[in-house]
């Protein structure tokens, strides 16, 4: 059984702590994304798994074997990099064959695997081309084929889509997920793009300052963030000044919103609520305000409303074409669904 585990891994670069007591278990055939802002330690974790960096303390375990001090070339990992990493002097087929040659795989078997992998990423027709003759998306697919050809125990993906344009990124993202599921390969995916992470992962790990803040399914991370950092980092979040009252509720102006904050009464808080948990309602039914702007997003529209009572700008997600008639300057009211809201004490 091939699993990947980090056990209390710590890594520093001079005075900077890149990872602090980092624990993670990637189950067999699972795809876990590490998501976080720049410098949070996600790439360091991946590089430690690959063997390009070594942990100061803690262990890295693959399939039950401690590989903490095994050099990179002796670990059986496949890796796809952020920048185009194909060897410019080799053709597509030779690139895919590279890892098989270093492992001294029999020539016939090697040829068969190269053909299979190119077939898998649908690039058989480009076998004899050089990397500079391919598009960015094609290069990353070849890099994926090359990483998979050696039948790695674990697949490591270091922001492989970040250099690609939006449309290719979406297609390749789905393709990576399809291939990963088909092969059932244990995968660790590093990205700073939350849409990517939420879109293809079995579980998402949100990192900050070298620590894992939350590790859960994409739905749970989005719907029930473990803390305000995760809530703010994943998706967009409105922050509305409020004051706690008894029974887990908060008061925003004269409106009372039921939440599950667990704070004592009379505490100044920020109410964190997602745009889709706000609704535009008839004037007088919620918090009054004026429409400032609207941003058409295709399937929905974000309507920006300045709430009178707290003088705060909030965004409201209006599905479908419901917001088409709303104009800036129009008076409206906003109702808050507090069931998924979070509260953060101020000060």
């Amino acid at each position, binding site marked *: 059984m091939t699993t990947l585990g980090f056990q209390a891994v710590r890594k520093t670069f001079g005075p900077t702590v890149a990872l602090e007591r980092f624990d993670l278990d990637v189950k067999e055939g699972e795809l876990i994304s590490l998501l976080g802002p720049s410098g949070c330690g996600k790439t360091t974790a991946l590089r430690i798994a*690959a*063997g*390009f960096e070594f942990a100061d303390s803690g262990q890295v375990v693959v399939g039950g074997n401690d590989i903490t001090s095994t*050099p*990179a*070339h*002796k*670990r059986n*990992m*496949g*890796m796809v*990099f952020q*920048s*185009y*990493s*194909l*060897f*410019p*002097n080799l*053709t*597509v*087929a*030779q690139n895919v064959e*590279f*890892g098989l040659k*270093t*492992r001294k795989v029999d020539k*016939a078997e090697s*040829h*068969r695997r*190269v*053909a299979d992998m*190119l077939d898998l990423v649908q690039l*058989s027709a480009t*076998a*004899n081309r*050089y990397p*500079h*003759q391919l598009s960015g998306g094609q290069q990353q697919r070849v*890099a994926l084929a*090359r*990483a998979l050809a*050696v039948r790695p125990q674990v697949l*490591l993906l270091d922001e492989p889509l970040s250099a690609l344009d939006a449309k290719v990124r979406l297609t390749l993202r789905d393709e990576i997920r399809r291939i990963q599921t088909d092969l059932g390969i244990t995968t660790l995916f590093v990205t700073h793009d939350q849409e990517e992470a939420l879109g293809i992962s079995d579980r998402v790990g949100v990192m900050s300052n070298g620590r894992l803040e939350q590790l859960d399914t994409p739905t749970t991370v989005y719907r029930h963030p473990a803390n305000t950092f995760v809530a703010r980092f994943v998706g967009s979040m409105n922050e509305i000044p409020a004051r706690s009252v008894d029974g887990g509720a908060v008061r925003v102006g004269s409106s009372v919103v039921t939440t599950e904050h667990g704070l004592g009464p009379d505490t100044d808080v920020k109410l964190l609520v997602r745009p889709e948990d706000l609704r535009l309602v008839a004037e007088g039914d919620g918090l009054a305000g004026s429409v400032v702007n609207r941003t058409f997003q295709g399937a929905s529209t974000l309507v920006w409303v300045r709430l009178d009572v707290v003088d705060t700008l909030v965004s409201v997600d209006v599905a479908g074409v419901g917001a088409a008639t709303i104009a800036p300057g129009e008076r409206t009211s906003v109702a808050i669904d507090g069931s998924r809201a979070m509260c953060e004490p101020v000060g």
Partner: protein
Amino acid sequence: MTQPLNTVGMFALADSGALDGTPKPPVASGPVGRPRRWVGRIVPTLVLIAAAVFFLAPLLTLARYALQNVPTIRLGWSTLFDNWSLSGVTKAFDDPQFWPTLTLSLKLAVFAVALTLLLLLPTAIWVHLRLPRLRSIIEFLTLLPYVIPAIALVAGIVAIKPHARWFLNSDYALVPFYAVLALPFTYRLIDAGLRAIDLRTLVDASRSLGAGWGGTIMKVLLPNLRTSVISASFLTAAVVLGEYTIASVILKNTFPTFQRVFVGREPQAGYGLFLLTLVITILLFVVLFFITRPRTSPRKPFVAPTESSAS
């Protein structure tokens, strides 16, 4: 003095409509635009011709002196096509010192190239990967042999000569000195090559695919630094085949020292030899140009195995 300039400026503004406030449509390129395009083409051509004359005229003069059996005083336009012959150059081939010195210099060139690459390539790779902050210091150090004249190096060699006779007695003692003299050129070429590739990613990719450091350098980095490595090798060889001072001071009979002696004895044939060396060097650079061009089709195309061949 400023009046005419201002007047010109005023006309330009008025013409563009900036003064009367009415924008004018762009004027189609007519007879006024044509001479400018013509000038744009002719000026670079003239510069190229001037540069070609500047470089080729001395070579042509050298060729006439070395390869025309005409007394120097009679070399002029009227004798341009008279008595051309390779006899001057071939005379050098018959000299008993020619082949031994050439062979020694070629051997020294091979060893100097090998030493340069063995020392420089891993060092430059390591500095780029692990010690990027040292790059400027190394750049400065490698520039020193260019700044400090060879004669200063020779003074140093003379000073250590009594203590290092065992080493300096060998002809191959010249190899490390040549490697040092070539450093300003070779380091810059290798450094430029390393900057041109995504070194860290290529190394990481190679190692993640199971290649050790040796395999990574030989199979991934060297082929991608081919232009730099070949250029550095040629330049090192050129330094070896042209260096006279050190070889002369430590009494080695290399090709340049032979040339110096030969030209004193047989001036015309000696200059013929210089010309031949130059031509061979130019030909080497032409070869370099062709062999470092990026490949667009593989030597052995990949053919996917069919069902029957796979079984």
